């Protein structure tokens, strides 16, 4: 494809722009148009008249669900093979490439000789994860995805930010640990 060169004309400083009043007026025209159009749309919505665009683009998040893009990188998910075993072969590529060093894997011998190795533990510290998606790119066996569509990941302790393998596989629901939960550091 040929490179297109688009010459942007430098705006000329005419007398009309220099006295600035005209430009102020043009700016005001834009903001006033937005103001009155949006006010009209808001009042139409308040009156219950259908057929107008919404007056604001705001998503009132905690009440309305968050709108995620199709390719949004959300919480990690470990995938399983057809026989139900985790796909992960504990090759440690994801742990190696992770720039935030938030993945911790320990390996063990797999009973399946074609796989040789499997993960004994697979922890992701979401408190440290930067959601770059490198682990997904690096995985040679397509064992890890970032498509759990879950973004509300906060917890009351750093420890609770660590997800272990059953939780990432979806076998066990993530529950807050009882230790360290809502502990007031000021109380003895």
């Amino acid at each position, binding site marked *: 494809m040929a490179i297109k060169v688009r010459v942007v004309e430098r705006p000329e400083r005419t007398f009309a722009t220099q006295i600035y009043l005209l430009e102020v007026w043009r*700016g*005001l025209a834009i903001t006033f148009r937005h103001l009155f159009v949006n006010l009209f749309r808001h009042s139409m919505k308040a009156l219950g008249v259908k057929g107008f665009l919404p007056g604001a683009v*705001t998503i009132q998040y905690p009440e309305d669900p968050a709108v995620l893009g199709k390719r949004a990188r959300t919480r990690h998910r470990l995938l399983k093979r057809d026989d139900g075993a985790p796909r992960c072969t504990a090759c440690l590529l994801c742990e190696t490439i992770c720039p935030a060093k938030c993945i911790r894997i320990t390996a063990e011998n797999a009973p399946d000789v074609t796989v040789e190795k499997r993960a004994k533990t697979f922890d992701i510290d979401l408190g440290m994860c930067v959601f770059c998606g490198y682990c997904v790119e690096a995985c040679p066996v397509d064992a890890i995805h970032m498509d759990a569509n879950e973004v509300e990941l906060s917890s009351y302790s750093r420890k609770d930010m660590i997800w272990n393998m059953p939780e990432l596989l979806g076998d066990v629901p993530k529950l807050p640990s009882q230790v360290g939960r809502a502990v007031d550091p000021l109380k003895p």
Partner: protein
Amino acid sequence: MTFAIPLNDVLFTTAKVLFAVVGVGLNIAGFLGWVERKQSAVLQDRIGANRASIFGIKILGLFHPIADAIKMLTKEDFVPKGAMKPLHGLAPMISLGCAMFCLAALPYGGTVVVAGRLYDLQPIALPMGVPLVLATLAFGVHGVVMAGYASGSNYGLLGALRGAAQMIAYEVCLASALAGLLFIYGTLDFSEAVLWQVTHGVWGIVVQPLAFILFLTAGAAVTKRTPFDLPEGESEIVGYHVEYSGMKFGMFLMTDFFESIVICGVITALFLGGWSIPGLDLPSMGPLGGFLMVNSFIVKMLLLLFLLMQLRWTLPRFRFDQLLDLGWKNLLPLSLLNFLATAWVVYLWR
């Protein structure tokens, strides 16, 4: 000095001043806090603050100014170690006090006859009203300078210096823009200026359109709000009130609103016919006339505030050299030329 003023007059004057400062000033300033949020939100396709509620009632976020006030009153009133404590405390009082005083000198109404007695609806009626208001507004810059100087912070001092340079530049324009108009009116009294517009049946904005634009620009600069908010300069230096917290900071915020109200009040009185409504002879209508006067004045003032608020959310901040150029090299010569031309025309006319 005589003390032969009837008690009625003292009570009435007190009531008027209270109405001006509390009824008009504090209410509109609180309301402006809401308008600022909502107007900016709507014109930027947003919703704006809508969460503060009392027993689940929200009314489009109207309770947010109350939440603000509670927050500011209950926050820690922090004075930094290097600050000069008396000056640090005095600065917001000077700023807000000056703006409040100006509010009491505005002509909310003319004179009305109620039950055979003549009542003047201007809280502080003085023959030197216009220069008094301008001088008091200019005095408010002492609060800004004092705040920056007494905080013991370089950023505060920078903001204060900017504030001083800006206020001096634009106070000059403010006064000189009015010169031509006051020359035509032949008075320095607000109520007589309004009466001139009523008797001649023409508003000051028609007589002196250039002066209106100059005064509006200089007035917007004096209120230290966004196109001219260099003393604050939120995104570069936090400005002269960087070391203030709690209600003292709130007082500086309120000063900006109060000064906007004062500027809009002065413009209303001198350029937009003050309390007059075209086609109605308000002074002869008794109590109803007085009621309409005050309301007409406040409605005109609110419309101007709406325009200033829109300007504030439309224009980006000036650079400092541009700001001073605009003040000294453009507004001041233009306003002086305007005054000379006016004097010439009036001389030829007579």
